[in-house]
C-alpha cells in the first residue's frame, strides 16, 4: 500500500542498492546464522541453569542430611546394681522407671577412664553420653527386671556434639576454643573408637520419637502423625466439596452472572497467598468458633479451604474431557440428567479428579505458612492421638529445626526434608500412575 502511495520514494531506494537482493541476503547470512546459534544457546543455558539449581538443591539437602540416619553410639559395660535401682527389692514398676540410671552410666564411664578427676573433667566425660541413654536403660530394665544385679554391655547414644565430631561435621583442625568439642573429649572418643566401642548405628529414634530439645533424641514420628491427621481432615472435607462443586458448575449450572462470579472466585482463590488462608483460620476457626489451637482439626480445615480451588479446577477439567456422546447415549436410554452424570460421566472422570486431588494433597502436605498462623508451631514432644490434640506437621518441624542453633539440627532438618520429599514423590508418582493407567483417549 505504501508502495502504491509513493512510487517516487521507492524508486531511489532501488537505485541506491545496485547489488541484487540475493547477494545482500548471502552476505548477511553468516551473521544471521550466528544469531540463530546464539539464541539456541541461550535456551540451552537457561534450561541448564534451572536444572543446575535443582541438582544443587538436592545435593545440598542430601549431602547435609544423609548422616542423620546414623547415630554414633558407645558400648559400655553397665553394672545394674540392685541397691541403686531397687533397694527394697519390690520390683515396683514406678521404682524401676525412675531409678538413677544416669548414676549407673556415670559409674561405668568412671570405671572406663579411672584417671579422670576434677569436677570439670568428670562433667565433660559424663556429657559424652546422651540423656537418651538413661531412658534406654530404664526401658530395658522395666521390660526385663531379671537384668538387675547383672553387668550388661549396651550401646548408648552419644551426645550431639560427640556425634557431630565422629561424623566429621565438627572440624578437628581448628583451635580448641572455636569448636564445641574440647581436645580432651577428642582424646577420649578416639581411644574408645580405637577399641571398637564407638560405632555408627542406624538411627531408629529419628523415626520413632517426637520432637526434643536434644538433637540426638529428636525424631519425626510426632510430626508425621500430625501430618497424617491433618491430611485426613483435609481430604475428608475438600474432596467431596470439590467434586460436588465441579459437577454442579460443569454439568448443571446455567451460564449466568452468579456462576460467572463463582468461577472468577475459584480462579482467584487458587492464587491467593496461602498465608491469607492462615489469617482466615485464625480469625474464624480459632477466635470465632473457639476451636483448639495447634490442632490437626483446624490445620486440616484451613488446608482444605486452600486446596478446594485446585480440586475444583482439576475436577472440571476431568469432566470436560468426557465426550458428550456418553451423556447423549445415557439420555437415549432414558436416564435423567442426574443419572447420566452420576452413573456414567462421573465414574469416567474419577481418575482425573483423583489425580487432581492427590496433587492438591501433595501441595497441602508441603504447606507451612498458614499452619504457623493457627499455632501449629508449638514445641510438642508427645505423639498426637486425636484431631483435637496439639500437634505439628512435617514442614513445620523442618521450620522449627531450621531455627535451632545446634549444629546437629542441620542434619536433622535435612533428613526431615528428605522424608518429606519422599512422601511428596510417592504421592506425585501415584498421581502419574493413576493418570497413565486410567487415562482414556477419546
Amino acid at each position: 500500500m505504501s508502495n502504491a502511495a509513493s512510487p517516487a520514494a521507492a524508486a531511489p531506494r532501488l537505485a541506491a542498492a545496485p547489488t541484487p537482493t540475493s547477494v545482500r541476503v548471502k552476505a548477511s547470512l553468516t551473521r544471521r546464522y550466528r544469531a540463530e546459534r546464539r539464541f539456541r544457546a541461550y535456551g540451552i543455558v537457561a534450561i541448564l541453569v534451572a536444572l543446575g539449581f535443582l541438582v544443587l538443591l538436592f545435593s545440598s539437602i542430601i549431602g547435609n542430611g544423609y548422616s542423620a540416619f546414623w547415630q554414633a553410639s558407645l558400648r559400655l559395660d553397665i553394672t545394674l546394681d540392685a541397691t541403686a535401682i531397687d533397694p527394697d527389692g519390690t520390683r515396683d514398676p514406678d521404682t524401676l522407671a525412675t531409678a538413677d540410671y544416669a548414676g549407673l552410666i556415670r559409674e561405668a564411664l568412671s570405671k572406663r577412664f579411672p584417671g579422670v578427676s576434677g569436677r570439670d573433667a568428670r562433667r565433660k566425660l559424663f556429657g559424652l553420653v546422651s540423656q537418651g541413654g538413661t531412658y534406654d536403660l530404664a526401658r530395658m530394665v522395666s521390660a526385663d527386671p531379671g537384668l538387675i544385679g547383672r553387668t550388661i554391655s549396651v550401646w548408648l547414644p552419644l551426645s550431639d556434639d560427640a556425634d557431630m565430631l565422629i561424623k566429621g561435621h565438627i572440624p578437628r583442625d581448628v583451635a580448641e576454643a572455636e569448636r564445641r568439642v574440647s581436645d580432651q573429649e577428642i582424646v577420649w572418643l578416639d581411644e574408645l573408637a580405637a577399641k571398637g566401642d564407638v560405632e555408627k548405628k542406624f538411627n531408629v529414634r529419628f523415626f520413632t520419637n517426637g520432637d526434643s530439645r536434644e538433637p540426638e533424641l529428636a525424631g519425626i514420628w510426632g510430626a508425621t502423625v500430625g501430618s497424617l491427621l491433618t491430611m485426613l481432615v483435609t481430604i475428608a472435607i475438600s474432596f467431596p466439596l470439590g467434586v460436588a462443586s465441579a459437577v454442579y458448575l460443569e454439568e448443571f449450572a446455567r451460564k449466568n452472572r452468579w456462576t460467572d462470579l463463582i468461577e472468577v472466585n475459584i480462579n482467584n482463590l487458587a492464587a491467593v497467598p496461602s498465608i491469607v488462608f492462615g489469617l482466615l483460620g485464625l480469625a474464624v476457626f480459632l477466635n470465632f468458633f473457639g476451636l483448639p489451637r495447634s490442632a490437626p482439626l483446624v490445620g486440616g480445615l484451613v488446608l482444605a479451604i486452600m486446596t478446594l480451588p485446585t480440586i475444583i479446577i482439576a475436577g472440571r477439567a476431568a469432566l470436560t474431557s468426557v465426550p458428550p456422546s456418553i451423556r447423549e447415549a445415557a439420555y437415549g436410554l432414558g436416564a435423567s440428567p442426574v443419572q447420566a452424570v452420576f452413573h456414567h460421566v462421573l465414574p469416567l472422570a474419577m481418575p482425573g479428579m483423583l489425580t487432581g486431588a492427590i496433587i492438591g494433597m501433595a501441595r497441602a502436605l508441603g504447606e507451612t505458612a498458614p499452619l504457623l498462623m493457627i499455632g501449629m508451631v508449638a514445641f510438642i514432644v508427645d505423639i498426637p492421638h486425636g484431631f483435637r490434640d496439639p500437634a505439628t506437621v512435617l514442614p513445620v518441624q523442618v521450620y522449627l529445626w531450621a531455627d535451632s542453633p545446634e549444629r546437629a539440627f542441620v542434619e536433622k532438618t535435612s533428613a526431615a526434608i528428605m522424608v518429606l520429599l519422599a512422601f511428596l514423590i510417592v504421592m506425585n508418582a501415584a498421581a502419574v500412575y493413576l493418570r497413565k493407567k486410567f487415562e482414556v483417549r477419546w
Partner: protein
Amino acid sequence: MPIAVLLATLIGLTVAGYYMGRSRAVAVGGHGTRHLNSLPSYYGLYVAAWCGIPAVSIVVLWLALEPEIIRALLVATLPDVAGTWSDGTMALMLNDIRNLAGGNIVSRDVDPELRTAAEYYAFLRNTGFAAMAVVALAIAAGGLTYGRRAIHPDLRARNRVEGVLMVFLIISSTVAILVTIGIVLSLLFEAIRFFQRVSPVEFLFGLEWSPQTALRADQVGSSGKFGSIPLLMGTALISFIAMCVAVPVGLLSAIYMAEYAPPRVRSAVKPALEILAGIPTVVYGFFAALTMAPFLRDWGSQIGLSISSESALAAGLVMGIMIIPFISSISDDVITAVPQSMREGSLGLGATKSETIRRVIIPAALPGIVGGVLLAVSRAIGETMIVVMAAGLAANLTVNPLQAVTTVTVQIVTLLVGDQEFDSAKTLAAFALGLVLFFVTLVLNIVALTVVKKYREQYE
C-alpha cells in the same frame, strides 16, 4: 466419646431407613416394580434422606451453638459482681470453671462458689447433650416413619432425591464464595479495629515500622510505629530480584522447549522442571538460609563487598528459582498455542527460526506471557517461608539488595506466632497487612487472568 456413638446410631438408622424404604416400595408396588414411579432404590434413598438429614443437621447446629448457649446460662448464675468484671477476668473465670469441671489444673484456689459453678457447668453440658441426643433421635425416628408412610407407587421418589442432591451440589459450589467473603470480612473486621488505634494515613504512608509495643506505658518506644512503606519496599525489592532470575530463565527455557527441543529432551526436561514447582517452600527457605546466604556472604567478602547474611539478594535468588517452573510452564502453554500458520508464514518468507520467534511468536504470545508474569509476581509477593527463613526482621527502607530487608509476609508471621493477647495493636497490625496483601494479589490476579483469558479467545 458419646458424640461418636450418637452419630453412629444416626448413620445406622439412616442405613436401616434405606433398606426399609426399598422393601416397602417393592411391597406397595404389587407385582414386581413395574407400577412404581421410580426404581426401588430411590424410595430407599428418599426414606434415608428424611431420616438422616434433619437429625444430623440438629447435631451439627448444637455442636456449633453449644459453647455460646452454655456460656450465657453460666454467666447468668455467677455472683452479682460479675457485672463489674472486665472481659479478661470473666474469660479467666470461665476457663477455670471449665478446667475444674474437666478435672484439670486450676489457676486459683478452689472455693465452694467455684465448685458449685463447675458442677453447674458440667450439669448444663450433660443435660444439654442428653436433650440434644433425644431430640435428634426422635427426629430421625419421626423422619423414618414419615418417609416410610409417604411411599406409594405414585410418589416421584427419584425427582425428590435428585432435588436434595442438587441442593447439596449448589451449596458446595457456593462454598468458594463463602470463603472469599470470609476472608474479606475477617481481614476487614480486624483491620478496622487496628485503624481505630493507628490512623490509616500513618499505616499507608509512614516510613517507620517498629511494632514492638512495650509492656508499660512509661517505657521507651511504648507507642510502636506502624508505617508500612519499608515493608512494601522490601517486598517489592525481593520480588523484583526473584523476577530478574525467573523471567529470563523461565522464558528462554520455555522457548527452547516449545520451539527447538526434540520430543525426547522435552519429555525429560519438562517433568524435571516441574519437580522444582513441587518442592515445599520451607525447603527453599532452608536452602536459602543454609547454603545461599553464607555462600553469597563469603563470596562478597572475597571481592570486598559487605553482604548481609540476611540479604534481600539470597531470598530473592532462591524465590526466583522457585518461580522458574511457574513462568516456564505458562509461557510454554502460550507459545504452543500460537497458530502454526504464523510460524510457517514467517519461515516461508525466509526468516530464521530465531527471527521467527523474536519477531512473530513472542509478539503474538506477549499478552499471555505478561499475564503469566503477573501471576508469578503475585505469587512472589505472597510467598512466605523463603523470606521468613532467609530475609531479616529489620525494617530497613533501602533498595540495596545486599542489605537485610523485611517483607509484609515476614511481619505477619512474626506478629502472630507465639502467644499474644489478641486485641493489641501489634497483633491487629498483622490483619491490616494481610488485607493489603490480599488486595494487591487480588488485583494482580484479576488483571492477569483477564489478560490470559482474552489472549486464549483470540486464537481459539
